[in-house]
């Protein structure tokens, strides 16, 4: 059986329709809903979004591969984005990344073997006042150093 949206998500999509002049504009909102519902945007989810909005699958695929916050593989229980851009780099982002990756035994873009934490490198997250910073699920955490990064990973692994 092919992938389906839950009734809740279908309702949310219906509520969005009158807010835009055409269905194609629901692309990002629907992809976000798909990611919330399924955890990531699989090929099956791309097909579902294309069918739901009546847009070509190629357009959906193009969007999914363009935007960095859309996951094409299932991420871990927690998602950590480590900022690497100027202000964070100046304050030690490289050392933080090395520590996080060593601790989890991963490279940026991978998920720890226990499935708990995915780590991504990110460009400027908009939190340079607490550089070097990480976006941990929904919250900015910083300023980090290798020691604090260790504690953060321990906490996320529970």
């Amino acid at each position, binding site marked *: 059986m092919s992938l389906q949206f839950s009734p809740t998500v279908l309702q949310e999509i219906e509520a969005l329709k009158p807010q835009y002049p055409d269905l194609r*504009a629901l692309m990002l909102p629907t992809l976000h809903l798909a990611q919330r519902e399924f955890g990531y945007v699989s090929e099956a989810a791309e097909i579902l979004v294309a069918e739901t909005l009546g847009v070509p699958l190629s357009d959906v695929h*193009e969007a999914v591969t363009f*935007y960095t916050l859309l996951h094409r593989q299932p991420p871990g229980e927690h998602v950590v984005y480590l900022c690497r851009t*100027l202000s964070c780099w100046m304050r030690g982002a490289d050392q933080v990344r090395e520590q996080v990756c060593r601790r989890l035994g991963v490279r940026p873009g991978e998920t720890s073997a226990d499935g708990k934490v995915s780590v991504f490198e990110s460009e400027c997250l*908009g939190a340079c006042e607490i550089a070097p910073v990480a976006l941990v699920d929904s919250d900015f955490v910083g300023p980090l150093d290798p020691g604090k990064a260790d504690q953060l990973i321990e906490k996320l692994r529970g």
Partner: protein
Amino acid sequence: MPKSQPILTAYFDDPESHTLAHYRRRGGYQALEQAIRTLKPDQVTETVKASKLRGLGGAGFSTGMKWGFIPKDNPKPRYLVVNADEGEPGTFKDKWLMLKEPHTLIEGMLIASYAIGCRRAYIYIRGEYVRPLERLKGALEEATAAGLVGAPLFGSDHRLDVTIHVGAGAYICGEETALLTSLEGGKGFPKLKPPFPAVEGAFKCPTIVNNVETLCYVPHILQRGAEWFAALGGERFGGMRLFAVSGDVAAPGVYELPLTVTLRELLYQHAGGIRGGRGSTELKAVIPGGSSAPILTAAEIDVQMDFDSLAKAGTMGGSGAVIALSTDVDIVEALYNVTRFYHHESCGQCTPCREGTGWMDKLLARTLRGGAREGDFDNLVRIARNIIGNTICPLGDAAALPVMSYVGKFRSEFDAYLQRAQGAA
């Protein structure tokens, strides 16, 4: 000094500043009511024009003039799009405005929509701003329940519906035409101007795209008068702005100051002075308006922080993001970081930017690996020159300008890499 009394940041320390009750207690939404009851839409635009408010997202264009570009005779719907896709490296001011003053933004949007005659607004917010998004949603619910959003306002037939549209991670979508393409459901490819969005923007309809901070000043301008705001600034610019200061300073953060402040005052009197990652207290260079801005040396910081003075100094005010680099920072490494950023974020639509940023990134990476070659840095500047002006959107220029200014002002640091490479060979 009454001149530098904070405006938008006055209640940042109050944990309730984001609530409708708090906003009402300090006169919130009165400017909107007054505007709708006593002013015609054109008069609102004239007031904003007279205040000399300029776009605080990066371009610094007159806000009132932009609103005036909406064609009067186009029967299509009009849109207001709030650019909350804050992504210029070093910039974090709009995040704080959305966290602390979401109702100021909504009131600014309501006033702007009345001025330009639009009934539907979108707030395009970057996907990483999860908590600011929650605050915005909460404020929008409050404003809707209070009949301010989605209902006729103060006995007029003007109403505004607001939709929050969440981005998904792409620096380029902060560029207004790319933002509109993204809003329409595409990947974030910028469009050629003209037509400018005011004539043909979102969904091929007249559209005004304004930055969060710009709109937040609007209610205050309506309430206290265009003259008051204009008088806070100088001849060609009004008011204050939020400077986001980061990098090698002792007290990074958001500072709301008149645009007449100098870069030296901002760094030393407000941001606590210089403090490098390894303890240096000596300034080497400053980026005064986001990473796209040409760099200034420590000897060039007695410049006033308004758009025109910074342009005259060969750089730009941009998004108001100030990044200080102490003598702990290697300029070549810093340029590599910035160039890698633009390479990563180039959307790939225009060949000079797509290929040029890649070449510059690779050349600098090779330099840092110890492989600098004779003529490399002249080549670097030549690539940058061939990007500038040859792309649809300003990202190409934003990638090229740092290269030209870093190499131009700190050539000896680059040449030292060449000498080391030749010595090793």
